[in-house]
């Protein structure tokens, strides 16, 4: 197999198996006359008037998981020299050292692009995202708290969220510096500040505008936009990477 195929092979092994779960009609979903969910109906609103971003969402294809900067020209990613060298080394090695290959978690913001469904739920004081991938959750606090001084840097970091017009704006710091933002290996250091702007455009579509502000790895902040779709009438399944991980031994690099 062409060595450049390995990342794709790995990604395909992540293909969601949610067809196995029985059909659970999404409560209150607008439907067309044939019973299908009307993905172009208006976005539902919460009691406070904001678009309700709750629901099960799925990234549209592998594009941003392979390359978070897929919509940018190569020279539009403002790498610091060492970060560019590291990125090139990771690509040359078929992503051998990607933490994902060892069943370590995807960090923020790679998780937004992992092609398994995730479920956004809103509770008093926090928004929770349940990821099918790795059966892991993320908390986004909306109660006005700030990052504790003794916060231990982590893969998902410390996230707070607030509404700005129709956008749910999530700010994340406290990241652990080990994160690959995609399988190509765009690095992210512990100095990173990631902003995600979730905007539900209509019933079935959302954009997530992601701004990477990481002065250690990039010379200026840069922004990309992802576009997940709603996955109606389904549920999340359990996903345990450690159960049968066969990737690591095959991805040997140079």
């Amino acid at each position, binding site marked *: 197999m062409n060595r450049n195929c390995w990342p794709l092979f790995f990604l395909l092994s992540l293909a969601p*198996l949610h067809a*196995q*779960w*029985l059909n*659970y009609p999404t*409560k209150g979903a607008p439907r067309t006359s044939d019973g299908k969910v009307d993905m172009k109906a208006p976005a539902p609103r919460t009691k406070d008037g904001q678009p309700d971003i709750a629901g099960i969402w799925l990234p549209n294809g592998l594009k941003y998981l392979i390359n978070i900067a897929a919509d940018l020209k190569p020279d539009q990613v403002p790498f610091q020299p060492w970060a560019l060298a590291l990125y090139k080394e990771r690509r040359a090695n078929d992503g051998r050292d990607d933490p994902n290959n*060892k*069943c*370590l*978690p995807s960090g923020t913001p790679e998780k937004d692009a992992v092609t398994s469904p995730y479920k956004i*739920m809103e*509770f*008093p004081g*926090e928004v*929770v995202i*349940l990821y099918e991938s790795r*059966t*892991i*959750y993320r*908390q986004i606090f909306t109660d006005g708290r700030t990052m*504790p001084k003794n916060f*231990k840097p*982590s*893969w*998902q970091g410390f996230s707070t969220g607030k509404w700005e017009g129709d956008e749910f704006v999530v700010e994340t710091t406290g990241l652990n510096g080990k994160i690959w933002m995609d399988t190509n290996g765009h690095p992210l250091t512990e100095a990173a500040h990631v902003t995600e702007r979730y905007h539900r455009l209509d019933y079935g579509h959302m954009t997530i505008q992601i701004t990477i502000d990481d002065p250690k790895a990039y010379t200026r902040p840069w922004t990309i936009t992802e576009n997940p779709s709603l996955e109606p009438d389904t*549920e*999340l*399944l*359990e996903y*345990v990477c*450690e*159960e049968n*991980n066969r990737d690591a031994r095959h991805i040997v690099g140079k």
Partner: protein
Amino acid sequence: MRLAILFMIATFVAAAQVKRTPDGKPDLSGMWAPEPVFSIHAKATALLLNREATPVQSDPDLRCTLPGVPRIDFEKPFKILQHPDEVVILYQDYTTYRQIFTDGRALPEDPQPTWLGYSVGKWEGDTLVVESAGFNDESWLDSAGTTHSEALHVTERFHRRDAKRMDIAVTIDDPKTFSHPFTVEEHARLLPAGELTEWICLEERGIQVRLGAER
């Protein structure tokens, strides 16, 4: 008689301290710390149908897969979040979660077996009764190494006794493993200022452990 009346008053006062959600159910939300339970079977009268000891090396925790149910209830703090249609438990352990559907759906009939199973819940008075099935036969019921079959059915009864305390009665029904169903009483206390932190098994255990198990 006087004692009985006092006890009733005390119970009533304790129950009155428990907030309610807008739909009138007791609000179980919050961070909870369980009293550790090492062996679920220690005090049970049910007989193990297969008394072969489980080797410590077969502990799925050493492979960093996922703990089973109810083992995951017994060790580290967890946070309960409550919607009318669904209760979510976020566990410190493995930064993993369980979804408990309270929208009236039934348990799936022939699901793909999983580590944490499938759960549905309903309210019986002020008690949230959670029924779970669809487990694989690899998880342990506790840290002592009590194993089970895919026929396992777990019932957890969550009752917030007062503002600070939760009683969780866990009934294990697995006719292929135990002579009859038995129940373990578990208790958890509220952690008012507590919060979850990320807990990644491979990092906690060291990756070498996993690679060792894989060879």
